[in-house]
């Protein structure tokens, strides 16, 4: 028998009121503004935008504030908001070759046109806690400036491409599939995989990428190039009959150069992995490139080693932290009826087992 129960409204209301109070914390401490979160927690904002799959720094800051800094909860809020937006269309593919690079490094070529630009990086910091930041002080000295052209710098893979040393990317201008519009179907093509990866959980992708480095489907990746900077987004406006720039976003792009593919007839070439993520999110972009490369084993004619990072179903079905947390966290919600049936079942089995044992223990006496 299924018995519907109601109740808990008062408890829920009170829990949410307390949540609001705890979110605010000690009222003696000044409240965080969205601008403070956007400006001073920028990398958290970037993560929420990339995994929330919606580029809007102010909304991401609001979500972080509302979620008390729980970034997966914040991503959930952004995803929920995203579904309420009418879709106006799609941009032309962004041209990362035109990026105004604020960071651009290559691990494969020391001297490359455009140079190695470190940008505002944690690299080469000592990773020692800086107690000066604990004391509220004045704004830091402005960083040094230098003469330099702000012009676009060429992609590293272009140099390799020129000599035929690396596979070239196919370009057929087909409309890519969109997993926010049609359910993910497997096998997925690379466009669908990249969409899934760029909005996937950073931690999950980092773990998978690391597993390839440790030997589970090793593909020996070099970071050919990592670049971060602003690119224009341009969209065709049907009512105008021409395209206009509708804004500008910051993205992180990682291109890996990986070990070869070749045959008796074709000379070997380097292969490629690709990462492209909203915001300054380089750990995620590098992870994405490594996992993208691992997932390409079939089209590159490589052996399936049975490694997790090669398993498209495994990777794409578990990369989304909102799907994952939805299913994981629902098990803490009331399952009284499910559990009731389990209880009844175990009592029945135990009763049978006990009856059997009782019967067994009587048997020897009977034999005497």
């Amino acid at each position, binding site marked *: 028998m299924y018995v519907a129960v109601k109740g808990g409204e008062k408890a829920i209301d009170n829990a949410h009121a307390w949540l609001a109070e705890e979110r605010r914390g000690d009222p003696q401490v000044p409240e965080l503004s969205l601008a403070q979160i956007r400006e001073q927690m920028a990398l958290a904002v970037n993560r929420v*935008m*990339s995994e929330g*799959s*919606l*580029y*809007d720094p*102010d*909304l991401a800051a609001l979500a972080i504030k509302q979620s008390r800094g729980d970034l997966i909860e914040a991503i959930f809020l952004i995803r929920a908001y*995203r579904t309420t*937006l*009418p*879709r*106006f269309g*799609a*941009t*032309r*593919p*962004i041209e*990362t070759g035109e990026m*105004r690079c604020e*960071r651009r490094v290559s691990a494969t070529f020391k*001297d490359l046109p455009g140079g*190695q*630009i*470190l*940008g*505002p990086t944690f690299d080469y910091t000592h990773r020692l806690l800086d107690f000066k930041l604990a004391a509220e002080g004045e704004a830091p000295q402005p*960083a*040094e*400036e*230098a003469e*330099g*052209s*702000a012009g676009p710098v060429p992609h590293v*893979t272009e140099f390799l491409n020129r000599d035929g040393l690396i596979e070239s*990317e*196919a*370009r057929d*201008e*087909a*409309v*890519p*599939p969109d997993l926010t519009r049609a359910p993910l179907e497997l096998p997925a093509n*690379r*466009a*669908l995989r*990249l969409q899934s990866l*760029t909005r996937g959980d950073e931690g999950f992708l980092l773990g998978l990428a690391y597993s390839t480095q440790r030997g589970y489907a090793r593909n020996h990746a070099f970071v050919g190039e990592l670049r971060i900077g602003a690119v224009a*987004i341009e969209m065709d406006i049907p*009512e105008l009959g*021409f395209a*206009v720039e*509708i*804004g500008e*976003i910051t993205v992180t*792009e990682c*291109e890996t150069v990986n070990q070869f593919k070749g045959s008796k007839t074709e000379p070997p070439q380097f292969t*490629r992995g*690709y990462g*492209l993520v909203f915001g300054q999110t380089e750990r995620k972009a590098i992870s994405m490139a490594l996992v993208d490369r691992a997932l390409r084993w079939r089209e590159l004619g490589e052996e399936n080693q049975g490694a997790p990072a090669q398993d498209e179903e495994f990777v794409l079905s578990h990369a989304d932290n909102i799907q994952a947390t939805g299913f994981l966290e629902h098990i803490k919600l009331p399952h009284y009826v499910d559990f009731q049936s389990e209880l009844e079942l175990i009592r029945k089995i135990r009763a049978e087992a006990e009856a059997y044992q009782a019967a067994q223990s009587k048997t020897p006496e009977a034999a005497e």
Partner: protein
Amino acid sequence: MTKKRQTWMGLLARAPSERVIALWDGIGKAPEFSWARMPETGGVMVRGRMGGTGDAFNMGEVTVTRCALRLETCGTTGHAYVQGRSRRHAEIAALADALLQTDEAATIETGLLDPLQREEEARRARRAAKAAATKVDFFTMVRGEDA
């Protein structure tokens, strides 16, 4: 005309909302208009290219506010597609787009476009200069056989 229009629409879309509003208020224009499309906020799917140059794939959406309007005086239409959720920004961008097609263009150019252009250039130059200061100069240490 199309080229010029693309340029100013892009500039108006990329500019920070608060600057667009402040500069517009400074011009002090309030032309009569009717909506062809009320301001509405939606999402636009941003696409990237595999390997930076290959086939397109979907990255994620960006918030965009759009509107269209018609000037009462001459019937000129103005359009706006502006990143973010500011309806006021979109409205001003559409009004500016309409007025720039009329003989009031000069006022909008000097009062709105020129300052936005200068500010964007300054913003970009400042960040480019900071980036340039983080460019690595490699040098070779004196090697044993050279000494």
